[in-house]
């Protein structure tokens, strides 16, 4: 058969019409078809602010990786979702502090590792904890285990954690967080002692199914998991740094859960799109303005105290935090042992007292620099501080720094005022550890040097009486404030929005515990 091809009689207009119609026909349904995200497809879509790129708990760099690790590994104990800090059993069937330096545990007998690495045993617990404190592992998370010594294995699934001295934070930041993840000894040794971007053996309720760097991490149910089954078949974690992008993605129906910016809280209080809800949680972060006590311009304590009283915290919270955050009383957030109900210097500025203290200091024509990060919240805060200090005659020049440069300020002896924000784990020990004399030149940028504070930091970590411990940390914060080196501002807040089909499981500070997320019926 002979086929005769004839030239199609398509003119320019015809071509354009056809191309437009074809484009519309392909693009629009393609778009609509893709928009079925809100359907109950068993996929939970959550936002993380970074990409989890290392599957080794020993080399975890924080919350982003822990979100994945906590889903694919087990710990003896896990944080409990809710309003108050606490823990619940995970891989352990029993765990008990038998004396201040010994913790006995027994493991469940139904947890196994993937890739044929067998059942979880006490040897795996021993290996996982001891490798973190082993210098050969080079783990930056070693300090979280404090005076941990070793684990005595007393049976296939029984053992005792041994501490060199009492260490209260073992229950709040060591066992239920990064350093508590249990990895397979056999698998890690087979991998040469270090886990890289891919897990070598998993044991949690989820398995990491795939990782597309900078795009998403996909977790799927572990078919061999014998514990309480997670509600969601699949969890997709999207690394989105920008909160505005995350909010748009949520409103477009592409995310189920995301933290939102403080500036958006008011809008979401009026209603969350698509029937969703807003959850407002306190945060553990702490923000303060520090003063370098060793700098020649700031060695006068009266001057520092004048500055403390001239900073109006409510104005800062209104302008920079959109009224969505509360004033802080120190470095320890509400809900943690050692939190102070009020600070020595009230949040509101007292310009009369500030002027009086300035006069007493004998300092005149004071000009200072204030270093801050290049984030809107901080630059706004810095501008308000600049304006309020001007009211008592102190001129402030604001230095805005990019994050890499800012965080290298530890050894900058010329630092004067600095607006700072540190992250925190749920134990006061973590907060005070940055302000000891040993940290001068590293993270103690104020160069605050108090032997009493240092003594409290050392002894409070070993104190097991909660009330006594709280008193010690309250005194530590009094010392900080009395020095005049600190003006505490806020602990910020963690506003989270979630879709109507999700029951979120959040830590008291608003961070996600993915394995416990539920479905709304």
């Amino acid at each position, binding site marked *: 058969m002979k086929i005769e091809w004839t030239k199609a009689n398509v003119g320019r207009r015809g071509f354009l019409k056809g191309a437009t119609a074809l484009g519309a026909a392909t693009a629009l349904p393609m778009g609509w078809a893709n928009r079925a995200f809100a359907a109950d497809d068993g996929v939970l879509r959550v936002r993380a602010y970074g990409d989890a790129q290392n599957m080794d708990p020993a080399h975890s760099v924080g919350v982003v990786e822990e979100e994945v690790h906590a889903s694919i590994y087990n710990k003896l104990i896990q944080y409990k979702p809710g309003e108050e800090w606490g823990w619940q059993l995970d891989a352990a069937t029993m765990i008990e502090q038998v004396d201040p330096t010994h913790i006995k545990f027994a493991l469940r007998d139904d947890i196994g590792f993937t890739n044929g690495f067998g059942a979880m045993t006490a040897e795996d617990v021993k290996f996982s904890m001891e490798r973190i404190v082993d210098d050969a592992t080079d783990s930056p998370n070693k300090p*979280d285990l404090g005076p941990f010594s070793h684990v005595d294995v007393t049976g296939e699934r029984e053992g005792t954690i041994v501490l060199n001295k009492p260490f209260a934070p073992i229950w709040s930041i060591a066992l239920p967080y990064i350093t508590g993840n249990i990895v397979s000894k056999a698998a890690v040794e087979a991998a040469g002692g270090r886990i*890289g971007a891919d897990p070598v053996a998993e044991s949690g309720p989820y398995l990491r199914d795939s990782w597309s760097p900078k795009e998403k991490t996909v977790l799927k149910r572990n078919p061999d998991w014998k514990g309480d089954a997670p509600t969601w078949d699949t969890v997709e974690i999207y*690394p989105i740094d*920008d909160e505005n992008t995350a909010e748009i993605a949520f409103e477009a129906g592409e995310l189920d859960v995301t933290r939102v910016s403080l500036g958006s809280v008011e809008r979401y209080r009026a209603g969350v799109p698509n029937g969703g809800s807003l959850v407002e949680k306190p945060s553990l972060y702490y923000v303060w303005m520090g003063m370098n006590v060793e700098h020649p311009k700031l060695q006068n304590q009266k001057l520092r105290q004048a500055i403390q009283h001239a900073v109006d915290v409510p104005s800062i919270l209104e302008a920079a935090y959109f009224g969505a955050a509360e004033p802080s009383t120190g470095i320890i957030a509400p809900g943690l042992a050692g939190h102070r109900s009020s600070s020595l210097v009230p949040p509101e500025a007292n310009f009369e007292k500030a002027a009086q203290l300035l006069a007493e200091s004998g300092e005149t024509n004071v000009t200072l620099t204030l270093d801050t990060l290049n984030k809107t919240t901080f630059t706004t805060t810095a501008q308000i501080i600049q304006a309020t200090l001007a009211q008592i005659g102190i001129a402030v020049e604001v230095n805005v720094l990019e994050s890499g440069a800012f965080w290298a300020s530890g050894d900058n002896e010329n630092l004067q005022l600095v607006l700072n924000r540190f992250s925190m784990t749920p134990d006061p020990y973590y907060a005070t550890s940055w302000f000891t004399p040993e940290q001068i030149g590293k993270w103690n940028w104020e160069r605050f040097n108090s032997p009493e504070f240092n003594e409290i930091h050392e002894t409070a970590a070993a104190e097991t009486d909660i009330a006594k411990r709280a008193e010690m940390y309250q005194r530590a914060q009094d010392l900080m404030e009395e020095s005049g080196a600190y003006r505490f501002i806020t602990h910020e807040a963690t506003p989270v929005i979630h879709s109507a089909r999700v029951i979120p499981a959040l830590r008291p500070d608003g961070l996600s515990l993915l394995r416990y997320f539920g479905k709304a019926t």
Partner: protein
Amino acid sequence: MLNFATRRFGLSLLILFVAVTVMFLMIRAVPGDPVQIMLGPRATPELQAQLTAALGLDQPIWKQLLIFYGNLLQGDLGTDVFSGRSVTDIVFQQLPFTLELIFASILWSASLGIALGAYAAAHPNTLIDRIAAAISVSFVAAPAFVVALLALLIFAVHLQWFPAIGAGEGFWDRLNHLVLPAFAIGLSWVGYIARLVRASMLEVMGESHVRTARAFGIAERRVVMVYALRIAILPVVTVIGVGMGFLLSSAVFAEIVFARPGLGKLVIDSITTRNYPIVMGSVLISTALFVVSTALADLINALLDPRARTAH
């Protein structure tokens, strides 16, 4: 032509060398300790010292530069400290996302821009020409990030026609995910190319070969499309070559706003964390892309217009 291509290739290598060396020195001049950032606040001084030595950061800068080029000649861009993965793998994993975004932007903006410019030039000083001019200037003036946000709000949130974030999986899904970011960063190029084509066309339309074609009674549509546009399009080729560099920088914000993976986002994240191996790998590849695209534009120009060869 071979001589021209050889000289152009040599120049490209020189540009690449200068750009990468300058970037190497600049990133090290920026304050901020990469080891401290990588290891976090709790790392011991011993651990910091070990990593500093492992990264070669304890060596003088000139020696670090020599080591970098030595490894580069062996095809080794280093290892990412955070994930332990090869930098080459990481960069080439992200590259396709950026390339598809840039090509999609160029494709649609050049197609529409050329058509709009040619049509306006064929009907100079008419109402249609003025409308085309107004549209073109509006497109040029529209900041890409504003277009991106508006496009997201209208087409992703309100109409829900297109996805807001990610890059998608599979051909159609990836294409679908490209629509909004490519629209956002290509829009200003539509106006720019349209104005360029119109000006160039009007100049060419007055040249003798076009007048001759008309004198021979060739149809006006053929005169415009074949005799005028073919010559008038030459500056567009050059502009697109240079435009690759601009689109690479536009891709950075598109990748952030649309939460897409890509080279731009990789560079930003790496600079923030002072991840030197990734920064250098990404800069090397993006500079190479820019150099190759401008060189290709020059070669195409030379092929289409013999005067360009002699001018060089």
